[in-house]
Structure formats: structure tokens, C-alpha cells
């Protein structure tokens, strides 16, 4: 049974705490998170990175796990890193595009 405290909204909000330091934008708005599955106290996140061989690989995956385990009701966190479909800048939210353009110009 899903813990009452554990909702998809809470999980997505937790994932928004994980920020790519190169682009200074969270991974949800960057479009890196493909899916979230909650099974009782276990959360499984399917995500990608902007490019295979991204140097932030370890930090972001571990950061996702930390953010999830910091949530009430989460006892187990899985991160599945996938390369299909490949990430594309069109996957960024309008807010992310606005943030990146505001930060880096253009």
C-alpha cells in the first residue's frame, strides 16, 4: 500500500530539488525524468541525461536517490538510467528554457 504521505506530486517535487550544476536547472524541468513509479514504500525513477558519458552521471543519480530517500514514506529508491528516447532540448519545460536563456543570455 502506498504511504499516505507519499504521492506522485511529492516525488516530482523531490526530484525538482536535484539541479544540474552545468545548466543550473532542475532535472524535471530539463526533461530528464521520463517516469516515476510508486510501489508501497518503493519509488522507481526512469531518467536520462543530456548526453551519454555526461560527467554528472554519478552525482545526479545519487542526488535523485538522496532526494527520494529524504521523503517521508520512502524506504527504497531505484534509478533506472535509460538512453532511449534520447534527450532533446525540446523536452525542456518552458520554465527551464526561460531560466537557461535568462542565465546564459539569448
Amino acid at each position, binding site marked *: 500500500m502506498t504511504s499516505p504521505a507519499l504521492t506522485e506530486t511529492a516525488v516530482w517535487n523531490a526530484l525538482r530539488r536535484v539541479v544540474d550544476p552545468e545548466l543550473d536547472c532542475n532535472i524535471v524541468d530539463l526533461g530528464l525524468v521520463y517516469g516515476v513509479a510508486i510501489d508501497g514504500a518503493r519509488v522507481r525513477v526512469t531518467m536520462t541525461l543530456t548526453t551519454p558519458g555526461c560527467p554528472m552521471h*554519478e552525482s545526479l543519480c545519487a542526488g535523485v536517490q538522496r532526494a527520494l530517500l529524504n521523503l517521508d514514506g520512502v524506504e527504497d529508491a531505484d534509478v533506472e538510467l535509460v538512453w532511449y528516447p534520447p534527450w532533446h532540448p525540446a523536452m525542456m519545460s518552458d520554465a527551464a528554457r526561460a531560466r537557461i536563456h535568462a542565465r546564459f543570455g539569448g
Partner: protein
Amino acid sequence: MAVSLHPSGAPDPATAALADRVAPSVTLPLRFMLAGLAALFLGMCGLVARPDLLAAYHYNQHIIALTHLFVLGWLGSVVMGATYQLVPVALETRLWSERLARWHFAIHLISVAGMVWMFWVWNMKQVGHFGSLFALGVGLFIWNLARTLRRAPRRTVTGIAIAAALGWLAAAILFGLAIAAYKCTYDSETGLATAVGVRSLVSGLRNLARYMARFDPIAAMHAHAHLGAVGFFTLLIVGVSYKLVPMFALSAVQRPRRAALSLALLNAGLLGAFFSVLLRSPLKPLFALVTVGGLAVYGRELLAILRARKRAALGGAVATFLTGVALLIPVSALALVLSWPGLPLNTFTGQLENLYGVLGLLGFVTLAVIGMLYKIVPFLAWFGAYSRHVGLARVPAFGEMYAARLQRFGRWSYLAGLFVVSAGILASNAPLVRAGALALVLSVGSLLINMGQVLRHWVRPQVGAPLSAQPANVSAP
């Protein structure tokens, strides 16, 4: 790839991540980079102290010493450190042996310092000894990287470029040692009867020296310089940029065949250029043209990558890198002019050769490396200081770890300094070279201050408040 974590009795997420990590620990590349920055500052101060070295022809002990300080001390240290960091990450594999890389660093430091010093006092026998030690370190580097490349899950244009660059590096070192052997005076092997191994070695070196005597020493030095500068540094920069520029610009290689063609032309051009320079062959312009053609194809692909980018402005680091790449235009033009067999051998031609070397090494390669340093060092410091806080607390972005204004000042003062040094070289005017070198020292000083700021994060992390209530950098859910 799935990463699972069980909090009860399981390791901390950071520990789990470490178990899965592909990159070596941050201290390994950082020590190479700090050594490189120290060599860069020292070298620039050397130019201020002895501007006459660039205002006259370059075949003398002091300019050779200074060149090796820049090439091996600055560029070699940084590029090798960056390679240890980037190759495993970019090719999605693990470094074969971090321990071997640490041994390499110790050998590299001692051998480069010894070589530069011995070049300065022109003790070629000791140059040969320190050079052999350097070759041992490079041997460890190549062995380690070759084993790492073999582990890579797929062949990419970047991986092929790195493999070719390692081959050219080995060729450059071996040829450099052969030049050193030619310039040495060896004791007679007949007096070494009790030590058969040493006797054979000395005998072999004497034979090598006799063989090298058939080549014009200046042509041999130029051929050696091209093996290192084009074969190692240029190929590595070109190959790695096919991975990193799309990564930073949010783009992709547009035509993989065009990227492969650029590497093929560079390799073919360099092979021909090496022999035509060494033998003073009239075919020099042909191979110069092939090499420049490779660079032109590279430039075209780079432009296509940048045109397709989704990140409008690229930031100071990539701008510095691209400024360096843009300097390939005058460098290529000079290469074509200097390859012309009918060029008169006068003072001005000699100064053009100086300018070619300076714009190539202190212009193109140095600016490209400084640009990448502004990406790599913040990443290393950030990884060491903040990686374990991601998802739990507010941590700085890379761009917040140093002063962007100081970076811009560094880029423009470097370009101004390079311009004035170039004018001083063409006019054979030592005071003008000194004025330009002072601007270069200022620029390098600003780089050191910024790198110091970045490393301060590593020593004293500035972790923000815990992210328990508010998501970071977020739009409305």
C-alpha cells in the same frame, strides 16, 4: 542501467555512486592541472624576463627550454590530467589504473622540471636522461589510456582521435629522444666491459646518433615539434571537442562522416608533413594543404554543431575555447606560407616561424585548454565538495564558483597580449614582446585567481539550506 539503494544497512548514496563511478578521484587530474598552471605562470614570467628570445631566431637553448616548459609543463600536464578525467567519462568506461596514473604524475613532475632546467643550461646528456624518464611516464600514460580505450563499449570518433593522438605522442617522444641522442657525446663503450647492458645501450645510442646525423638538426627539431603539437595536442583537442562542444552547447555532431574525414585528413597530412619537413622535401606545401584541409573540415563541422545548438549563449568557457580554435586561421595561413620551398631564408622568415609557433602553442592550444579548464576544474571541485549534497541542499552551479567578469578580462587581456607579442615578434622588437608578455602575465594571474576561487569551494564548501520545503530552481509543478 539501474541503481538501487536500500537505506537499512546499505551504504550512503554517495558511497553507492562511488562504487559505480567511472572517473578517477578528483585529486588525480587536479594535481596535473595545478602543476600545469604553475608552469604557465612561470613560462609567462620567463617571457617577460627574456623577451629577446622571441625577438630573435628560435634555435637556441633558452627558447627550447621555455618551449618545453610551455609544451610539457603547462599544456602536457593539463592535457594529460584532463585526459585521465575525461576519457573514462566521455567513453563510458573506467580508468584502467589510477595508481599507475599517480606514478605517472610523480615521474612527469620530476622529468619535466629536470628537462627544462637541463635545456636551459644546455646539458644534452642530462636532457636525454630526464627525457628518458619523461618517456617512461608517457609510456605509463599511453599504456593506461590504451587499456582504458579497449574497455570502451563502442568505437566513437572521439575514441579514435584519442587513440591516434596517443600514437603521435609516442612518436614525438621517441623522435625527441633520438634528437637528444644525436646531440650527446657518449663515453666510449669499450670502457664499459663489465657492464654489458650499459655497453650495449651506449653502443646503440651512438649508432642512433650516427643515423640522426644525416638529418638537418633544425628540420629534425621542426618535425619533432609538429608531431607533438599537431599529432598530440591538435588531434586531442579536435577529437574531444566533438564530444564536449555538443555537450556544452546542447547540440550534436551534425555529420559524423565529416568529423571522421577531418581526423583522417589531419592524420594523413601530419604523416606527410613529418617526413617532408624532416627531409626538407618540396612536397611540404601539399601535406600542409592536406593538414589545413583537415582543420577546415573540422571548422565546418564545429560551425554546424554550433548552428544547431539549443543553448543560445555559450558562456565564457566555450567562448575562450572557440577563440582558441579561431586562431587556427592565422596559424594555418602561416603554415601554408612557411611550407613554401622557395621562401627566402632571411630574418623575417625566421620571425614568421616564431610567430607560427607562438600562435599555435600560446594561441590556439593554450586558449582551447584554458577554455576547457574553466569547465573541468569547477566540475572537479564541485564533485569533491557538493556531489554528496545534491538533492538535499542548495549547492552552487558551476558558473557561480568563479567570477565571470574576471574570466572575460582574462580572455581579452590574453588576446591583447598575444597581439602585442605577435607584433613584437614580427618587428624583432624585444620591448614590444615584453609589453605583450606583461599583458599575458596579467591574464594568467586572473586565471589563477579564478581557479583559486573555484578550489576554495573544494576546501570550504558553501552548502546552502536543506531543500526540505522548496524545490530548487523550479517551475510550478
